[in-house]
């Protein structure tokens, strides 16, 4: 039995004591290789006989449309957008993650509250407000952070999309009118926030620059140790 299931008061209306599953989170910016590693981990864990659910900030049915619509026209205020992402996360947590953990699954989360908080802090939201807002989140068993320099992310972004994306370059933050400059500034700020959270939330810091197999091997080693297998 864990000492504490939630960061703050959690979901008081749920009678949730302990559950057999494990929650493993992979955090990191766009192009840091999260989804590649999640799918490799899933194969590996399933081969070992674990039931695995992979989930992410993929937009639930609840507000996914609103977020997409709003992003197209940039018509939402920042607080509204934070809250919509939070709604989306809550929906996934309550309707997917918690049921799977209760059923004994290993849940691999492609991003969790930390990316949402980092993105909001860079956009001027109060940390205290965000911490309380996301206080209903379950404390994961492990949080891996794929740490990469903005310079490398920039090249990976070109390699992956052939261009820089408006939102992933943080153009809405008006750090710079030039997308190239904005990308670097935005990701430098995000990196600072991730690194600050790494201490507070006990992230396992992984050098994302290394090749895929090496990174995957490190993650597996830590998971094996944790699961005691």
């Amino acid at each position, binding site marked *: 039995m864990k000492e504490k299931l939630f960061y703050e008061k959690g*979901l008081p209306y749920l009678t949730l004591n302990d559950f057999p599953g494990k929650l493993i989170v992979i955090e990191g910016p766009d192009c840091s290789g999260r989804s590649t590693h999640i799918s490799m981990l899933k194969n590996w864990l399933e081969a070992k006989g674990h039931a695995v659910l992979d989930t992410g900030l993929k937009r639930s049915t609840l507000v996914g449309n609103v977020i997409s619509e709003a992003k197209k026209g940039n018509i939402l*205020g920042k607080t509204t957008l934070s809250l919509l992402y939070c709604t989306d996360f809550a929906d996934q947590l309550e309707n997917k993650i918690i049921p799977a953990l209760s059923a004994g699954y290993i849940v691999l989360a492609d991003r969790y509250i930390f990316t949402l908080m980092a993105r909001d802090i860079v*956009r001027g939201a109060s940390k205290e407000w965000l911490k*309380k807002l996301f206080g209903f989140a379950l404390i994961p068993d492990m949080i891996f952070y794929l740490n990469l320099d903005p310079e490398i992310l920039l090249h990976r972004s070109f390699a992956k999309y052939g261009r820089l994306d408006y939102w992933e370059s943080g153009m809405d933050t008006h750090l710079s009118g030039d997308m190239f400059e904005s990308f670097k500034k935005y990701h430098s700020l995000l990196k600072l926030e991730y690194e600050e959270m790494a201490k507070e939330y006990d992230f396992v810091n992984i050098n994302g620059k290394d090749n895929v197999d090496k990174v995957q091997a490190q993650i597996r080693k830590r998971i094996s140790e944790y699961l005691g297998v």
Partner: protein
Amino acid sequence: MMKKVRGLGMGKSYPGKLFVVEGCDGSGKSTQVYLLKKWLESKGYIVFFTEWNSSELIKESTKKAKKKNLLTPTTFSLMHVSDFADRYEKLILPHLRAGYIVLCDRYIYTAFARDMARGVDADWVRNVYDFAVKPTGAFYFQAPLEISVQRILAGRPQLKYHEAGMDMGWSTDPVESFKIFQGIIKQNYDNMIEEEGFMVIDATQPIEKQQAIVRELIEEKLQGYKSPYKRKS
């Protein structure tokens, strides 16, 4: 570097004036706020009115989610605060900054009363709405439970699922469930009176009498206030 912390509006003040009406379903507050708007406009003020759950962007999603019964107390709360935040950022705050009078049919206290009734943590929901400015005046239309419930039941062939709090599983009978739900909400409102400085209006009085009291209180709160320009009649 843009590191100005946004949000957290409770300590801020703006040249505009914000009045909100709160109370249980069937308390008559919508009628009162309508009459109030008429009166203020007749006096030449520029008045902006907004009601709960009416964001152009979000209300459809909320409606759909309710219909499919997809919501938990937390996502129910977050959908409503998203709707509120959208109206707040786009409509309420800009009007206040421009110096107008804003009237809200339900404000953050509705969320506090309802979400707490659904079992959401009280401190959590208060923090969620922390970006909202404290109103110039908040009217609470207080009526005994039997009266407000009777008013709703008389005017409606069927209660809606969430309106009746059926999602809480208190009772399989919608009327019974509605009564339990409204009872808790009323208790939550009553508990907020002092802390939030509600102006309590006895909602069992005749409409005209209530309106006269409201207008008198508003007049006091508007002393020294000047509209940015006069409304042409």
